[in-house]
């Protein structure tokens, strides 16, 4: 609208530049932002992330600001301004490199060429800190900034550069988030090599340095570590009850070192039996409750594969354990096991001492294979996807190229598997057991997606954080191994984008049910960006035990501190609580899309158009304004009419307020 268009004109609009932490005013953000001690960083983060989605918010965001990979005319003005007025607080470096609290400059090199695949060569200054790489250029009519956090770097490659003189070196940063920026720079004597400095800070663990999360000193008004309290979450689910108990058997991680300390297990089982079950399950990951249906008491139980082995070993305690789980649900005399793996793989696993439950040893148990390929297949699929989307795309074969990566096919398999699980609980009133091999990859994907379909609480901003904390982080998805935080061994076959795949599935659901989720796309992208960044402690390490040993909650900041300090930015304005509604996504290729605003976001040509929610936000503001006016006039009118006519007395004083979620 006109007002905002005006604001955009002076360089810093409302949009994502709004003041942190909930003040609704859309003032001149430049000043207010840096006013607060931590605001600058928050704003900066938001701008960077917002770059990827809100590229063309109508009349409210100066487009230049929101772009990591591009010229940033007004943004530089805003930097200048803040440097002048609040220099001390913001800690601007001489080259206008904004630093986070705790961040330190490492080196700065002039005359570096950024080889932009979209706009050609850019000459500028490359600065490396212990958190990021920051490239600025003032060469063109509007300044250019490229900002890459070091955590996102997967490997550093030297590339050959021709015709640029003898001492020129080429460098490519192959990143985990689907881009590979390239630079050319002159080597000089007595100057530390850029690659060396970069490698040291991009892979701190390989150089005996701490992850940046341990150096980061930001303070947020909200403590994200308090988001997930397992006991409270189980209490919300109505636990403990007569069949299920909250057990401290793993409080010192002795039973299972990759499980959380608090577990929900059946009441009627002795510690001794549990220990025997643990021996029979891979990595001691015994069947434990993830979620219980509030009405039918059917449960989602997760575990690892049974160690059946080639000789078809049995374990009486394990068989009885599953029987108890089945009995805990009075509505059904069956139990369904969903084995995420391809059946052929499950069979092969028997030879490797693993295996699956035999229906003849486990009475009334039905075993289903979901036929989902393993982590290596997924890694390869996303690698292919990178080739499709970066740096350029083949316009004529865009759709078939996506098909060839099979990425969406795997998304479809996952969503279909989760929908089967949810349906078994909801319609079949039957408890389910979910496992794959170790129970920390595909199992986490499936249980969390099924819970998202079943329980509207997980579709809220806070609830979704709880879901991730619970099913992924506390249950030992090996984030460190799968992401490779701070580790230079990029070829490690343990790496795989399973969590990215999960978030993609969630995004697909939000596309099909645009009003059912409280969080928005920016939130999902922010989560994925900080999966790699090592700025927050949330996704560090492989298990709760490791995290507690490293005192992550004491020494690092939670991503949820950042998110929940300004929830309005991550809120979907369309949100209505689909309370008690089970939402099954339609698992069809016709409705699955490539999430191009995440995967293809570095290509400025690929960005989507005006996000719809912007308009809704404007309408919400309009409604609030009108409501205020009406109330004002109503007061006026009633004071008038006391003496004169009662003409107004029959006009309704009640405003039919839609119980809409207001982000105003």
């Amino acid at each position: 609208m006109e007002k905002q268009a005006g604001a955009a004109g002076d360089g810093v609009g409302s949009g994502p530049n709004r003041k942190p932490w909930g003040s609704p005013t859309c003032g001149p953000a430049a000043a207010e932002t840096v006013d607060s001690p931590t605001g600058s960083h928050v704003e900066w983060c938001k701008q960077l992330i917002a770059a990827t989605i809100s590229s063309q918010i109508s009349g409210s965001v100066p487009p230049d600001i929101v772009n990591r990979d591009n010229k940033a005319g007004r943004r530089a003005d805003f930097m200048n301004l803040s440097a002048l007025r609040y220099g001390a607080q913001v800690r601007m470096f001489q080259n206008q490199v904004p630093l986070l609290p705790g961040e330190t400059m490492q080196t700065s090199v002039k005359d570096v060429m950024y080889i932009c695949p979209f706009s050609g060569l850019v000459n500028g200054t490359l600065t490396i800190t212990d958190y990021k790489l920051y490239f600025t250029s003032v060469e063109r009519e509007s300044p250019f900034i490229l900002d890459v956090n070091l955590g996102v770097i997967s490997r550093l490659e030297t590339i050959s550069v021709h015709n640029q003189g003898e001492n020129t070196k080429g460098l490519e940063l192959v990143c985990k988030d689907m881009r590979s920026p390239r630079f050319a720079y002159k080597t000089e004597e007595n100057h530390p090599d850029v690659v060396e400095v970069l490698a040291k800070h991009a892979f701190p663990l390989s150089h005996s340095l701490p992850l940046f999360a341990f150096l980061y000193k930001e303070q947020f008004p909200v403590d994200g570590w308090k988001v997930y309290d397992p006991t409270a979450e189980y209490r919300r689910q109505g636990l403990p009850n007569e069949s299920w108990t909250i057990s401290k058997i793993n409080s010192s991680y002795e039973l299972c070192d990759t499980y959380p300390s608090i577990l929900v297990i059946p009441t009627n089982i002795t510690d001794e039996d549990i220990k025997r079950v643990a021996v029979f399950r891979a990595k001691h990951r015994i069947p434990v409750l993830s979620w219980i249906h509030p009405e039918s008491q059917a449960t989602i139980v997760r575990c690892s594969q049974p160690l059946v082995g080639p000789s078809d070993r049995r374990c009486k305690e394990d068989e009885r354990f599953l029987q108890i789980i089945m009995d805990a649900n009075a509505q059904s005399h069956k139990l369904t096991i969903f084995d995420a793996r391809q059946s052929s793989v499950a069979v092969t696993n028997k030879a490797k001492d693993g295996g699956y439950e035999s229906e003849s040893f486990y009475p009334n148990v039905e075993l289903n294979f979901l036929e989902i390929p393993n982590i290596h297949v997924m890694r390869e699929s996303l690698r292919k996807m990178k080739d499709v989307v970066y740096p350029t795309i083949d316009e004529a074969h865009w759709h078939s190229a996506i098909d060839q990566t099979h990425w969406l096919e795997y998304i479809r398999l996952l969503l279909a598997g989760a929908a089967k699980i949810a349906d078994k609980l909801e319609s079949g009133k039957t408890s389910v057991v979910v496992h794959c091999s170790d129970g920390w990859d595909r199992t986490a994907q499936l249980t969390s997606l099924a819970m998202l379909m079943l329980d509207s609480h997980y579709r809220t901003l806070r609830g979704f954080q709880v879901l991730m904390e619970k099913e992924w982080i506390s249950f030992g998805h090996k984030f460190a191994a799968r992401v490779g935080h701070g580790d230079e061994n990029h070829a490690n076959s343990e790496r795989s984008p399973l969590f990215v795949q999960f978030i993609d599935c969630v995004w697909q659901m939000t596309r099909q049910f645009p009003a059912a989720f409280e969080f928005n796309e920016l939130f999902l992208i922010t989560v994925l960006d900080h999966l790699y960044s090592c700025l927050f402690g949330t996704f560090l390490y492989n298990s709760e035990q490791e995290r507690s040993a490293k005192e992550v909650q004491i020494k690092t900041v939670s991503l949820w501190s950042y998110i929940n300090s300004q929830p309005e930015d991550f809120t979907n304005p369309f949100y209505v609580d689909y309370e008690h509604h089970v939402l099954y996504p339609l698992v069809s290729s016709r409705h699955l899309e490539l999430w191009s605003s995440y995967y293809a976001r570095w290509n400025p040509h690929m960005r989507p158009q005006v996000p719809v929610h912007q308009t809704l936000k404007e309408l919400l503001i309009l409604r609030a304004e009108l409501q205020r006016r009406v109330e004002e006039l109503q007061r006026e009118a009633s004071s008038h009419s006391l003496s004169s006519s009662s003409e107004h007395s029959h006009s309704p004083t009640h405003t039919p307020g839609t119980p809409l979620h207001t982000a105003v």
Partner: protein
Amino acid sequence: MFSVKPLKPTFKCYLPPVQTDVKKTIEQPIKKLEPSLLQGEIVVNEVNFVRKCISAESSQDDLWGKLICTNFKVSFIPQDAPPKQKSKLSHLLLGEHDIPLTCLEQVVTVNDTKGKKKVLGSNQKLKFNPTELILYCKDLRIIRFCFDEAGPESAKKVCLAIAHYSHPADIQLLFGFEYQGRRYHESKGERVNGSTPRGGLQTPIFDRPSDWDREIKRTGASEWRVCAINENYAISQSLPEYIVVPVSLADQDLKQYSIFYTDQRIPLWCWNHVNGSALVRMANINDPLQQKKIDQRVFTAITKSHPQRGEVVRSDLDKCLPNIQDIQSAFVKIRQICVIDPFEESEERWLTSVENSRWLEFVRAFLKHSAEMVYYLEGKNSSVVLQEGEDRDLSCVVSSLVQLMLDPHYRSLIGFQSLVQKEWVMAGHRFLDRCNHLKKNDKEESPLFMLFLDCVWQMMNQYPAAFEFTETYLTVLSDSMWIPLFSTFLFNSPKQRAQYLMDFAKNKAIPQGEDQVVYFPPVWNWSQQLSIKDQTLFNNPMYVGKGAACVQNGEVKTFRRTKKTYSSTMRGTSASQRNGLKGGEEPLPRRGSLLSELKPDFSPVKDESPIERFFRDWFSRPADQQGVLIPLLMPSHVALWKLFFLRWVPEACIPKGGPITAYHKLSQLVDEIEILQSKLRQYKGPSSGSTPLPSPSGPLSDQRRMYFKASSPSDSSTPPDYLSSSFPFTPVGNLCRRGIHGTPISKFLNGARIWLSTETLANDTV
């Protein structure tokens, strides 16, 4: 650049082994099943005990009833009417199970026991008793009836009647000619009292000089004039009677030039930019010797009509866009994968199939070409001449898209309708041939108007607040093409329309001088088809909400739609590199250059072409939804229009989901805003003294523009359960392919092969 492909639509048909499990006996019909007939509609043939198939997998939901063929529609009257679904548009002229005969694409009869199939045409014989009738509809529905319990002879007769009546020998046999005559006379009484000009229609028809005059004034085209040389179609058979031409060209000149143009279609003004540049369309000049001379004169005249004497750019559409056959074959393919192929089969490699159909590629091509024309008009201040062989197909799409991009007026409902009227109906798009209403010549059939609607949807999808109307409107409009009751889509040219309507008036004793809009109305009078309430589904809450008011300093002001926002000065001048668009084809040779080719020698990307810079600049600024709008054109930005293509596909319907759930919430919000605004007016009324106090109930009840009303706090705001991604349409019973479920795929394939080899080929020849 596009190869010519055979365009005859082919439908795969799948014949599973005979289903024997459907031996459900039914009782005699107790109540009489009466069709609801329009004025002048008569029953031709009917058959009882017909089963309408609802799902391919089982017959348990199937409906039993009577199948009727009238001179207007195929009607099925179920014995036990299922409870009325709340989620449907209720059409005033057509029942839930009705299909207008004009909407039939193919009538297929099947005999399962004999393994025979025949596509029925007009006046044909059928050597077997059909056990099944499958109707493939132009609106993408597929409807299947079974005759297992019906009298074989009656079934056969109904099938033949349907086939016969859906192939009318003459345009005047289309039901509209019967219906509108009756309707005119029967509703005469109502009209006399309070009759309004043109029956109250607000959409200009462009059949009289005043409509053109108004358009000239609105766009400030002062150097252009309305010209009447084609009055009574004296010059051209396909141009409208009144056209707009450069002031500097005299009637005499135009008459002289006209003989050299195909069908005497002299250059036709479409629209003027505020900067003075004009959009003009014209046919080819047949005589190459004369071409240069006439071109020069015409172009000089166009230049003279430009206040800054801007140059004239000619775009030869035949050379840079797919032809009508390509478009038809792409549509046939996309329809095949969307509704005809078995769902599961087409799930694999879905995107590849979509790509292979080339439909989206063509949509992009038209949008892209139109965007380039926008560059010349807006960025270069040049006038643009669209040239096409006959100027009656591709030009319609491009000229209307260019105007949609440049002029916000056409993004309003009335504006859009006037655009269709001006660039399609009056410009002589051959609706009769392209729709193939008479099923006479398949080679002439091509879904150009549908392609245009898809392009509009793409723009709407990218700029959701820029259009006053919704995708439901576009879909209902596309469906209206197949209802032969409105004059809009029935004729090939204004002249043909005039002639037929004159004869019609004579035959039906309609007084001379009566306005044809009154006696044979266009589609734009939506109350013919839908209730006022259902018409509110056309209103886009985002547009309404923004347009309603904007609050400044606590004052509610009417939203100003500024024309000035055309100029780029509003949006700052920074030339940052965002969303830059690639240059296009022909006149812009640097295709594909910006993106990839970082030269190995690291030289910076060579200077952009001006058009690349124009697009890059435009995309670097926030889009003003009331200004120029240029669509993004990477393949990722052009999507399949799901509501249109998938609304009948039950497997693709998202229960409780889809974009409609966001629309629901937005509508409620806007409704609430409007209630608040009316209250505000109410309170301010007495204090200002002049305005009369509105009634306390407000202006609301009948003026509320939103389909979904603001709920009271006690209601749940959860979207109602009946919403689905197909809303307001429902796939139930509207898409019944012959199922392959429950049959092993190999068995099915074997069966199909045997069947194909013996019977189909012989029987398929129509």
